[in-house]
């Protein structure tokens, strides 16, 4: 029985058939005794599992869980969710007295520390606001005065090292408003004979602050909602070790990836090309695919004159390709260490198609969509008799699957490629090549050295 029909049966056992599948399933049961037998057995297994006695948890499991939670973690609360005021439990008067005395004892050092802090704060306040405060002001002014005089003396000392002609000496720009003290110092230091400059005390009014856009940020209206953001989807090429193809998830991802574009190039990296070619042919044979190998390519591969070969297949569906790689993975796992490395699948680009065209000698038409089957766009309702015939033909056609064909040619070096017209195997492949099926995916599988 085919995998599809078995899957239909197991879905029925799961109780998750759609309406269409239910129809197919009923017809299958009516027409096939084998299907009925398999369904009965699987359903019985499912019922046995369902009817297994319910295991009773240990009586203290709840306590153990709660005790562990209490021991390991605090209550997961938000900061303000806990009540601030909590009611005290009722206690006896004796207990309350003990509690009070112990609390008062604990408060003694705190009270002493608070007193000291208060005294220090008070005395500091008195010092800086009383006579001490005045002294501080004077000290500050005298210090400022001495600083300016020192700087003036310093400048006069440096002046004697300057050239005699001071007229051309660059002068630092001076501010318009000069403080009284600074002017006096400048007058003394330069020892000018001209009359001292008249000191003009000017008061410059600072510019008013710029008006805020929202003077009251608390009462301002909320900002308008941000419009919907564009979602950017980044597509990452499929890249997995071949060894992962024994996992269903990898095969599922592979099938999903292959369903996204009309044609794919799949690079398979290997450590030993001649063995890889043999193993790929074995795996393909198990998958009912006959890989015709160009004789010249085979010869060059055996002499290690080729760094990569290409296998062109256009008769397999994505799921069949996933199965093929799973079988290749199984083939690879037979000998340690494995020779295959990673599988890298990318959509075919124009250059790939050009290269393939030069290898095959004909346009493979990778980007051409196969013609839709007649009536596929506007399906008409079918009669139950037709459904019967389809189901019968599906059931009768099991095991009569036609062999698919593929061709293996040299990929690199490009100078070593076989001339298409001189390859007998290629001609045979092209003769067998019929119309591509709607669900088939053309792929070029490039088996290459890891460093090629």
């Amino acid at each position, binding site marked *: 029985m085919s995998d599809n029909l078995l899957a239909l049966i197991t879905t029925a056992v799961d109780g998750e058939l759609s309406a269409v599948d239910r129809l197919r399933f009923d017809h299958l049961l009516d027409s096939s005794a084998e299907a009925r037998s398999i369904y009965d057995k699987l359903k019985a297994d499912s019922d046995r599992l369902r009817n297994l006695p319910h295991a009773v*948890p240990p009586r203290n*499991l709840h306590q153990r869980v709660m005790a562990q939670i209490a021991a390991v973690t605090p209550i997961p609360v938000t900061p303000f969710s806990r009540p601030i005021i909590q009611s005290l439990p009722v206690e006896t008067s004796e207990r309350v007295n003990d509690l009070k005395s112990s609390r008062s004892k604990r408060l003694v050092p705190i009270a002493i520390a608070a007193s000291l802090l208060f005294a220090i704060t008070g005395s500091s306040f008195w010092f800086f606001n009383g006579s001490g405060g005045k002294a501080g002001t004077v000290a500050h002014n005298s210090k400022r005065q001495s600083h300016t005089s020192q700087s003036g003396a310093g400048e006069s000392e440096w002046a004697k090292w300057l050239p005699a002609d001071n007229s051309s000496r660059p002068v630092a720009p001076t501010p318009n408003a000069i403080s009284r003290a600074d002017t006096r110092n400048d007058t003394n230091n330069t020892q000018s004979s001209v009359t001292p400059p008249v000191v003009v005390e000017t008061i410059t009014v600072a510019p008013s602050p710029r008006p805020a856009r929202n003077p009251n940020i608390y009462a301002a209206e909320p900002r308008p909602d941000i419009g919907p953001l564009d979602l950017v989807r980044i597509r990452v090429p499929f890249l997995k070790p071949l060894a992962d193809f024994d996992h*269903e998830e990898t095969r599922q991802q592979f099938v999903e990836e292959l369903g996204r574009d009309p044609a794919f190039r799949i690079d398979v990296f290997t450590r030993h090309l001649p063995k890889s070619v043999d193993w790929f042919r074995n795996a393909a044979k198990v998958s009912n695919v006959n890989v015709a190998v160009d004789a010249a390519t085979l010869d060059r591969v055996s002499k290690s004159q080729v760094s990569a070969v290409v296998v062109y297949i256009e008769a397999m569906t994505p799921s069949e390709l996933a199965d093929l790689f799973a079988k290749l993975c199984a083939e690879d796992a037979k000998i340690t260490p494995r020779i295959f490395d990673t599988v890298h699948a990318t959509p075919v680009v124009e250059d790939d198609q050009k290269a393939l065209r030069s290898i095959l000698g004909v346009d493979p038409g990778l980007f051409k969509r196969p013609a839709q089957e007649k009536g596929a766009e506007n399906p008409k309702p079918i009669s139950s008799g037709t459904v019967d015939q389809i189901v019968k033909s599906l059931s009768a056609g099991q095991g009569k699957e036609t062999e698919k064909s593929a061709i293996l040619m040299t990929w690199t070096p490009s100078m070593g490629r076989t001339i298409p017209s001189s390859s007998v195997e290629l001609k045979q492949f092209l003769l067998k090549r019929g119309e591509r099926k709607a669900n088939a995916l053309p792929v070029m599988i490039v088996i290459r050295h890891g460093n090629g």
Partner: protein
Amino acid sequence: MSDDDRQLIASCLGGQREAFGELVSRYQARLYNAAIRLVDNPDDAADVVQDAFLNAYQSLHTFKGDAEFFTWLYRIAFNAAISLKRKKRAAVSLDAVGPDAGIDPDDPSEYVKPGAALERTEEETQLQEAMNRLSHEHREVLVLKDIDGVKYEDIAEILGVPIGTIRSRLHRARLELRELLENEGG
């Protein structure tokens, strides 16, 4: 998610640990029943349940509430079961020669009472043994589907894989279980 669960979770996040205790009471039996079919050992199953509830409690604030609570809890429990299996696998050689080897466990549950194995029917034993020989991936989908009656969508959410994978996993698991039972004469 049911309103009761929602209320209990809110209360728990509000600081009431007893509310989480109510959730434990509500789901512990169901979770334990699934866990024991996964690990086939009462002690381990209890540990799995305990770890699952503890982890759920610690990360309860991350639970968004857009799925069923038990779905979320199952996901944690199944991860805990996988972790436990890994730990056990690493320590199995030490346990085999340890001083406690051969001593009866002190678990008070009915499952491990003296003679409990005899009370288990031959059919159940055969079925459980076949289940134990399945891969963990196949066993967990069968437990969820057949023992717990969870739908494809929920299984996919619990295990974090696409529905198509669940369907094909169940398909293979059923066929593998059938083959094992036939080989054992079931």
